């Protein structure tokens, strides 16, 4: 990227960063009624449509994703091919959700319309290079996998087929898809050899740290996978959860031991966590801080743009939670808990001691 492009990108990111919510704004939004909130974010026309609350919720989610992806498209314009590929790789997250929805839909033999309703409409630049029409028209999982095997996802399809035929469990298949997504992201970062490398490693490292720790806890202690298999599904991070640390952590036998063995600052974040959801929340905070640090303190525009997109996605998820709370007419207290403005006073998830007991898979 030329100096002018960097300056343009940095200015663009700085202007867009003004859209991010601050805690005061979030607290105020949580108190607003649905119509005011929707009106403020140009979502009122969707609420005015004569749709059911599920369809409205879906349309709002789609609109928020469109907002995020149109901002992504705007940000990648001045970028060079390498940076653009990285940001687009991050944006393909939604395309992978579509792929998983398709597979899950076919696996449970859902109606085509129902599957279609749950697919996101995505701009062509973040779509996967897949024969979507053929995949959608597949009448069962095996046919779907055959179609997948004909494209660039043939390796994942072959693996997925073996996993599917042996276990008939979508979890393993989805884990393979997720793992591939994060591995691709890590690979894209490793291709940088300039000033972008370090901040990107730190930022994407935080993303991977969160994913790795959550997968580790879930795979090991929820699904009862062996240390070897758990390790196999993880993606070594540039940050705190690097390969050697992962090898060490997967060998531990209880969640408490894993949390106690975490390096700073994760150890502080995870102490006194009551449940895996609690850990997830705190890891979200860690990612939020890292992204905010990159956005405020770093110079290279690519890392700042990615940090902005990560933060913006968090904000839009929060906005969606507020709107969904309004659509479902949930009590204000529950909504506050959902957007992390209040602590839950009921056990929202399995407690650590319960979750520590390894469970055999069905």
């Amino acid at each position, binding site marked *: 990227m030329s100096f002018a492009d960097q300056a343009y990108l940095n200015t663009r990111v700085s202007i867009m960063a003004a859209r991010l919510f601050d805690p005061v704004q979030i607290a105020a939004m949580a108190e607003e009624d649905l119509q005011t909130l929707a009106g403020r974010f140009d979502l009122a026309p969707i609420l005015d449509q004569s749709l059911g609350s599920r369809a409205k919720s879906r349309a709002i989610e789609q609109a928020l994703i469109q907002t995020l992806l149109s901002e992504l498209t705007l940000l990648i314009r001045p970028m060079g091919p390498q940076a653009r590929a990285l940001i687009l790789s991050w944006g393909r997250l939604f395309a992978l959700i579509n792929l998983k929805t398709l597979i899950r839909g076919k696996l449970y033999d859902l109606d085509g319309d129902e599957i279609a309703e749950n697919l996101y409409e995505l701009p062509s630049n973040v779509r996967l290079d897949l024969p979507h029409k053929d995949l959608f028209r597949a009448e069962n999982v095996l046919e779907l996998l055959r179609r997948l095997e004909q494209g660039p996802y043939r390796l994942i399809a072959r693996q997925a087929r073996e996993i599917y035929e042996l276990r008939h469990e979508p979890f393993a298949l989805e884990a393979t898809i997720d793992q591939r997504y994060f591995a691709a992201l890590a690979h894209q970062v490793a291709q940088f050899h300039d000033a972008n490398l370090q901040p990107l490693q730190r930022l994407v490292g935080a993303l991977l740290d969160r994913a790795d720790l959550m997968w580790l806890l879930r795979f090991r202690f929820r699904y009862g996978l062996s240390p070897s*298999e758990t390790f196999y599904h993880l993606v070594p991070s540039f940050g705190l959860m690097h390969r050697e640390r992962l090898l060490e952590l997967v060998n531990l036998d209880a969640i408490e031991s894993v949390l106690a063995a975490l390096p700073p600052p994760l150890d502080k974040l995870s102490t006194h966590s009551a449940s895996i959801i609690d850990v997830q929340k705190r890891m979200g905070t860690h990612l939020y801080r890292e992204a905010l640090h990159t956005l405020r303190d770093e110079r290279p525009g690519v890392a700042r743009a990615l940090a902005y997109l990560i933060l913006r996605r968090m904000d839009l998820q929060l906005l969606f939670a507020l709107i969904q709370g309004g659509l479902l007419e949930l009590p204000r207290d529950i909504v506050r808990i959902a957007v992390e403005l209040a602590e839950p006073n009921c056990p929202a998830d399995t407690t650590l001691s319960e979750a520590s007991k390894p469970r055999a898979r069905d």
Partner: protein
Amino acid sequence: MLRPLPMKHVRLLVLTEDLQRASLALAQAESFHADTRPPEEARLTGAPGRRYGELFRIAHARLDKIGKLTPSGNAPQLQEVRVILEPELQSVTEWLGEIWSECSRYEERHRRLDDEERLVKEQEAALANFANLDIDLGMLRKKTRFLDFYVGIVPRENLHRLEGAVKLADHFLYPYMTSGDNTHLVIVGPAGTKEAQLGSVLQAAGFQHLALPEGLDREPDSKLAELSRRRREIEEERRTLDSRFARWSAGFEGRLQDAQRVLLLAEPLVILDPAIRSSGHLAYLAGWSPAYALQRLRERLEEGLEHPFTLETRDPRSDERPLVPTVPVRNRLLQPFSMLVKQYGIPQYGEIDPTPLFAATFLLMFGSMFGDVGQGAVIAAVAWYWRPRLGRFYLFGIMAGLSSVAFGFLFGSLFGYEQLLPALWMSPLHDPILMLRLALAWGVLFLATACTLAIYNRLVVGNLAGAIFGPHGLINLLFYLSLVWGGLNLAIGEAFGLLPLFLATGSLLVLAVDGWRHLEAPLGEKILVVFIQTLETVISYVSNTLSFLRIAAFSLNHVALAIAIFTLADMMGTFGRVVTIVLGNLFMILLEGGIVLIQVLRLEFYEGFARYFSGEGHEFTPLRMRRTGGN
């Protein structure tokens, strides 16, 4: 010709049991474009065609997939038009489901054979690799009391993670060969303790065992022969599978064609589905139709429907204008130009269709910039010769070529020779100043016409303020014409003139005031923006007019290029001269012709369309019945 074909809004009320017939009648009339807006009547909320549409889509997808495996000879022709009711469509869908299920099993068996063949190939590669080793490979084949051995392949991209995972299970991984996307490896570790753990990891990593044959260390040749035999067997199995499938599929080829016919007949209702609403036995359908075709539409419905129906028509309301489809130009000669106009957009209903104007001005400008009898004839001949490849676009090439020929006669130019043909007018190089003046005059006429069309288009859609104050509206035109008037006065050596000065300044002031009124910004920003906008108006009209000088420049350039080629040719011998002239002409046709084409399109799109053509309409696509199957 410039005005759009008048359209009518059509509202059709039929009994739901007549819907299929109505869809066929409308498809046969080929003059009904569906309007998918919900009806104003609140009770019309049913969607009677939904299930029908769902069945159609499933059947169509199955037919499409079956068609890829069993390509039938001829696409079926639709001989008889008949109503396809839902039970028939359902039975066809179910039958196609059974056929596809069998086809899918065939595909799956093929895939398994492919997989097995791949594995045999990997085994052959592994065998060739092991054959050179001087160790007892029998040890790798079976478990020992203390050690477990796994020999196999794994996708290359999984190797690194598998290495760590295997290490956690106290095993050791040794990759010994890479072939394609796979890595061949041996995993060794202590027997018993973590076998189950390792098994699940290997499964997740897509590990495939390569069974080492018995007696490998003694007779590798015979083992290789065995694997080669297995490959032949797989090939044979594949052939048997294919021939069995071909025999099986031949048995229902006729029925498959019948199914295609059923889908062709069901298609019109499915296309109309989004526009159909119902309440009880009453179904509602709305759309657009050219006014001239209404009588035929009514006749078709009267012929086709069993029960009474109501057909109401009315003129489009002004608020509906953006929704009214525009009937594209049908004139054969204008169609290639229409294709180019579509690259910019479709005229909105009521807007002037720029195609005829575009065609005329394009040919005029192209010919004047590339006037040569010989080169124009070559362009026309090439377009004629390649007409099968160019499709309808070949006419564009022929007309551009003929325009070049016509101007070639005016300029007296034949393959660059200026002496062979007497010029009907003059060579551009004889009076370059006149050429430049003419180009400027053409530019003024072009821009003034574009502004006039912009004013007309806005008036037609009821945008009076836009017609007067908007970009390229009446005030802009007034400013431009007074600027031209003053410019002409200066050109003939007089003063700019008080009246033109008053008109130009006054219109600029009006534009500035209008811009000020519509701007919401702090005072300083308002002053800056209005100043820049006003300055931009002056600069853009001046520069846009000067932009047309390129017409004269290219006509001069064409002659100058020819002179340069002849100068080069004169420096050669006879053969060199001929070659230089031929290649030079070829160069001029390809390079200069291409550049002129781009320049003219630029003038048309940027100086013309951008002023008066919104291109925000949508094309009239009437419901039609496909008479032939296939995609």
